[in-house]
């Protein structure tokens, strides 16, 4: 059963085709990598899936079409995400950051909050308990009352994942989780991603540049370049794919080599 299914998905920004006819299927409970050089359209694909932009083609999550759905609706369907450049609620505490993500599960609404009814207190206590449990899992519980921006970079990244997990998502989209990590931290991240998948029984899709992480943890990899699919398959196959190597190492095709040579002759 497919957790996420993209069929002929395209996105234009004015004249620029950021994503072009991309199709892939993410199997349920898999760890799926979306890679490609800078500007390949990976993050754009994430933004299409999470409803930040509209798109051509079709994207289905389980049985539900994501066409025309807004980001908040998609989050409620069970897709959590993190961002390439960390987006925390800056002036809120660590605990509050996580609590915001369970607003959708709240039983006590504005009226109960204004009346401070018993339901309100029970709700708050329940939510706080869940949030603290989650923070403990991510080893952030001792800084629950710190303002989120006072955390170290690594802790901010973990907090962002914890916040996404508070949605109780069925699928988690990680946008460059290894950015800025050293070798040891990246190794730890690989473990954490596998553990997240097994513990919470979710599907994980990651956009990542760090090949150590991608090749080590992903079961399936989809490679984009200039918005187009250039390869798809398990890590072993991707590692050897000539198109992927060309895209990453910038190997020249014969045509480009000729045109460059021509240009070189024209300008002494």
């Amino acid at each position, binding site marked *: 059963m497919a957790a996420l299914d993209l069929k002929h998905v395209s996105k234009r920004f004015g004249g620029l085709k950021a994503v072009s006819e991309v199709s892939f299927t993410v199997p349920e409970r898999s760890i799926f990598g979306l890679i490609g050089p800078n500007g390949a359209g990976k993050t754009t694909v994430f933004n299409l899936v999470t409803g930040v932009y509209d798109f051509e083609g079709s994207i289905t999550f389980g049985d539900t079409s994501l066409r025309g759905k*807004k980001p*908040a609706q998609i989050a*409620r369907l069970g897709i959590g995400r993190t*961002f390439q450049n960390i987006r925390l609620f800056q002036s*809120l505490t660590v605990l*509050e950051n996580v*609590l915001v993500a369970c*607003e959708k599960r709240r039983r006590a609404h504005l009226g109960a909050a204004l009346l401070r009814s018993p339901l309100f207190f029970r709700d708050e206590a329940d939510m706080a308990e869940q949030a603290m449990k989650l923070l403990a899992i991510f080893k952030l519980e001792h800084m629950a*009352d710190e303002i989120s921006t006072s955390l170290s970079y690594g802790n901010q990244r973990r907090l962002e994942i914890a916040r*996404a997990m508070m949605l109780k998502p069925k699928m988690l989209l990680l946008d460059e989780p290894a950015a800025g990590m050293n070798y040891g931290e990246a190794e730890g991240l690989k473990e954490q991603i596998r553990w997240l998948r097994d513990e919470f029984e979710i599907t994980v899709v990651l956009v990542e540049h760090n090949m150590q992480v991608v090749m080590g943890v992903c079961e399936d990899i989809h490679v984009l370049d200039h918005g187009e699919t250039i390869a798809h398959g398990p890590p072993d196959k991707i590692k050897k794919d000539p198109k992927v190597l060309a895209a990453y190492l910038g190997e020249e095709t014969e045509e480009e080599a000729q045109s460059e040579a021509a240009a070189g002759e024209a300008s002494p």
Partner: protein
Amino acid sequence: MPSWIKRGALALALVAVAVAAEFAMPVIIPDTAWRVLVQQALVAVVIALSLNVINGMAGQFSIGHAGFVGIGAYTSAVVASHMHARLGSPTDYSFAHSFMIVPPAIIAAGLVAAVFGFLLGLPSLRLKGDYLAIVTLGFAEIFRLLIATSSPGAPEGTLSHTIGQLGGQQGYGGPEDRGIAQYAGGFWLVGGAITAIIIAWRLKFSGWGRALRALRENEVAAAAVGVDPTSYKVTSFVISAIGGGIAGALLAGMRDGTPTVQPDQFNFFFSFDAITMVILGGSGSVSGAVLGGIFVTVTNRIIEQLQRLDSVEAFRIAHPDVDLNALRMVVYAAVLVALMVMRPSGVFGEREIIKGRRGPAEKPA
């Protein structure tokens, strides 16, 4: 002690304070001018708290709060005055009668303001910062000018004639200009301010307030965890408008205030004062809005009184070329600039005098 007994006792105590205020105010403060000042400060607290929902908690920038307050003031003036006329227009404005007049006037003011809050909330989904500010300013000015430029003397059947029933530039003074009913004494003003403080506090320290602040900090991330920007932004505008409308109702019906409402009361400077109250106290802080409201009201009055001093009068006569009113604005602005340099987030920032519930700490007592 079970929590409901504690809460009930507290509620009773607050009602007692409000009732006491009704009867004690004229005794403790025999001077009408001082009484007006206290009543204005109480209304200002409600104004500041309501604006704080948009400008503080939601992080939008509205500079048209005068519009909501004005709409509330006119609505309640019309409702209260007509109901008062039904009572046979007694002149004593008794406390008992106020229970028949004030609640419907306040509800009507809140409802009408809520409709405009909803309409003004819609553009806030697409507009941010300066652009939204201009829309809110435009709204308040359109409201004021529609009333100010209409005339009851205009030919019947025209829009000007219809709106002109509200008195045009001369202001609204109730049916047949006998003055609007002024039932909002100490009970309603103190009660209104207390209620506004409780509601503002509970809004801020609730999941809703938390989500609203999250939206202010990062809209994309908030949406990505299921907080729908549309519903939160529009709701915050509606709540703020209701608060502003009710403040207007209290302002119009203020026991010792003037028995008319004038369009020019609700000009840009009114909105500007409201913003000053919020920013001075600290955007997003309930305590800050309360103190800001009181401080700005009192300061305005002090500056007004200073101008009446003999020495100042003498100076004015000796130097007719110096515009003291302009000087007042310069001093005022200088104080604000100094504050913004020293404490850019206001006196309180987003904090409170007493510790609020950041997260789950507060348990039912």
